[in-house]
C-alpha cells in the first residue's frame, strides 16, 4: 500500500520561470516526510510535481525523473489520472465539493473509479471516515452538505476523501494552515496513524509541526527572489532540528533567516 518516491534532477517551470531546480530526494515507504522552507522556495511546486498536478496550470512543466517504486510517472505512456489515483493530495484550504453531501464527498473518488455498488461505497465511506477520525462526528448526518462542517472537520473530510481510494502516497500541502490549534492537533494525530499504511509527504510552514510529525525533513530555499528553489538539506528530522549540517538550515530553523 505504501511506495517509495524517488526524485532525481527534478526541475519545474511556470512558463519561462524556473521554480525549482535539480531536486534529488528519496522518500521511503510508510514514513512522514516534511518539506520546509521560506515562502516561494518551491516546496509546494515540488509537491505538486509528485502527483502531476503542477502541469494543470497553463504553461507549467516538469523536467527530470520522478519514480514511484521504480515506475516513471512522467513516462509518455503513463495515464496521468492513474498517477493521481495512486498519489492522493490534501490541499491547503479544505475543499470539499460544496454541492455534495458528506457521504458523496468521501466516495467521490471511488465513483470516478467506476464503483457504483451502494454496499461497497457505504463500507468504503465508513472505513475512510473512521481512518480520518471523523466517523463518530458525522455518522448521523452523512446526507448533510460537506461544506456545513467546521474547518477542521472539512479538512478531515478531505483526508477521508483522499484515502478512500486507497492511494500509495498521500501529499499534504500545508493541510493545517487554515485550521485552529485543536483541529491541527487532530490532523497531526491522524498523520501518525496514517503512516502505517501510506507514504506521507507534507509541506508545512510550521516548524514545530514538522518536528512533531515527520521522520525526515527536507529544507528548501532560494538565493533571492526570482531564483529557482533548491533542496538545501535532507535528513532525519531529529538531525535537522538538533544538529543541521548546513549553516543555512540552522539559520532558518533558529529563526535567523534573512
Amino acid at each position, binding site marked *: 500500500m505504501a511506495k517509495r518516491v524517488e526524485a532525481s534532477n527534478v526541475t519545474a517551470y511556470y512558463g519561462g520561470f524556473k521554480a525549482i531546480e535539480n531536486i534529488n530526494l528519496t522518500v521511503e515507504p510508510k514514513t512522514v516526510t516534511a518539506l520546509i522552507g521560506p515562502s516561494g522556495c518551491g516546496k509546494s511546486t515540488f509537491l505538486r510535481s509528485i*502527483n502531476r*498536478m503542477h502541469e*494543470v496550470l*497553463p504553461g507549467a512543466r516538469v523536467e527530470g525523473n520522478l519514480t514511484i517504486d521504480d515506475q516513471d510517472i512522467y513516462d509518455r505512456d503513463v495515464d496521468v*489520472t*492513474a*498517477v*493521481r*489515483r495512486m498519489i*492522493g*493530495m490534501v*490541499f491547503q*484550504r479544505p*475543499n*470539499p*465539493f*460544496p*454541492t*455534495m*453531501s458528506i457521504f458523496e464527498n468521501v466516495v*467521490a*473518488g471511488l465513483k*470516478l*473509479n467506476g464503483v457504483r455498488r451502494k454496499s461497497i461505497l457505504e463500507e468504503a465511506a465508513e472505513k475512510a471516515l473512521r481512518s480520518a477520525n471523523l466517523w463518530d462526528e458525522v455518522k448521523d448526518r452523512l446526507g*448533510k*452538505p460537506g*461544506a*456545513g462542517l467546521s474547518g477542521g472537520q472539512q479538512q478531515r473530510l*478531505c483526508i477521508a*476523501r*483522499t484515502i478512500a*481510494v486507497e492511494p500509495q502516497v498521500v501529499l499534504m500541502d500545508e493541510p493545517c494552515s487554515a485550521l485552529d490549534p485543536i483541529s491541527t492537533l487532530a490532523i497531526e494525530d491522524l498523520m501518525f496513524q496514517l503512516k502505517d499504511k501510506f507514504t506521507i509527504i507534507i509541506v508545512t510552514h510550521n516548524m514545530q509541526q514538522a518536528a512533531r510529525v515527520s521522520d525526515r525533513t527536507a529544507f528548501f530555499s532560494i538565493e533571492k527572489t526570482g531564483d529557482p528553489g533548491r533542496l538545501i538539506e535532507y535528513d532525519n528530522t531529529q538531525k535537522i532540528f538538533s544538529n543541521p549540517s548546513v549553516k543555512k538550515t540552522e539559520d532558518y530553523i533558529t529563526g535567523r533567516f534573512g
Partner: protein
Amino acid sequence: MGETPHRSADAGTGGTRVTQSHEWPAGASARVAEAPVSTRSPGGVGLGGGGALPRSRKFGAERAFHGLTLAAGTAVLVIIAAIAIFLIAKAVPALRANTENFWSYEGWSPNETEPKFGIGTLAFGTVLSAALALLMAVPVALGIALYLSHYAPRRLGTALGFLVDLLAAVPSVVFGLWGRDIFVNPVRDFSVWLNEYFGWIPIFGGDGPFGKSIMLGALVLAIMVLPIITSLSREVFLQTPTANEEAALALGATRWEMLRTAVLPYGRPGIIAAVMLGLGRALGETIALAMTLGITFGISFNLIQNGGNTIAANIANAFGEANETGRGALIASGLVLFTITLIVNITARAIIYRRREFTESAA
C-alpha cells in the same frame, strides 16, 4: 481614508469614537463620507473636547439615500400594480363579450359582432415552440460555455465569447427576416426529407406544405436564446473555485469527469437561471415568430407542416386591425402569457430553493 486622521485625533482626546459611532451608526462608508463635516460642527476642533454630544441629524445623506431607495422600491410595486389594473380592466369586457369558451375555442375572431376567440391554441404554440427551442439550444449552449471556460485557450475563449455576446445584439426582426426568407429553404428541404422517411412518426407526418412551421420558428428561437444561455453559464462555470477543480483532478478525474464532479454541480443554480432567462425570451419573442410561423389556429404536435402560432406573435399580427373588443382579447392573451412566464419562474425558484442547503454553503 477619513478614518486614520480621526483615530490619531482620538488618541489624544479620548472618548470621541464612542460619540461618532452614535452619530453615524450606519457603518464605515457613511462615516468616511461625512467625516470632514464633523470638524466643522459646533464644539470646535477638539473633537473630544468638553462640549455636549452632537445631536443626531434629522436630515443627512444617510436619510436622503434611505428615502431614495425606498421610493425606487415602491415605484416598482406601484408601476406593476398600475399595469395589472389597466390590463385587467381592458381584458374583462372583452372576455365577457366572448361567445365561445376562452380556454378551449380554436380560433381568434374577436372583431366580429359575435366575438369568438380562444387562448388554447396560442398558449399551446407558445409553450411548444419555446420548449423545442430550449431543447435544441440548451445542450449546444452548455457545450459552448464549457468549451469557452475550460477547454479553449484563454485568448480564443475570450474572442469567441465576445462573438457569442454579439449574437445577442442582433435585433429579433433581423432573425425573423433571415428565418422567413433564407433559413426557411434548408428547413423546408429537411422537413420534406423527414416527412419522407419518418412520416410515420406523427410529429413529422402530414401532406405539406412544409417550411413555415413550428420547427422553423423553434430553430430561429433557439439561435436567439443561445447567446443568453451561453454567456451566463460561461460566467458561472468560470466562477467554479479552482480548489474544487483541483480536488477532482487530484482524485484522478479526467477533464470531463472534473467538469461533471466539480463544475456542473457548482454551476447548477446558475444554469437553471440562465435557462429560465432563455425561456423567458423564447416565450415572449414576438416578431421573429410572427414572421417565421405559418399562423394557423389549431392544436397540433406536427412540427414540420406550415402552421403554428404564439400569443406574442398573434398580438403583433392582430393588433393593427383590432377593434375595442379585439384589443381587449389580445390584452387577455397577454395576461395568460404573463401567467405562463410567472409559473415558469416560480418553478425555477422552487428547483433552486430545494437544494439551497447545498448551494448556499457553496457561496
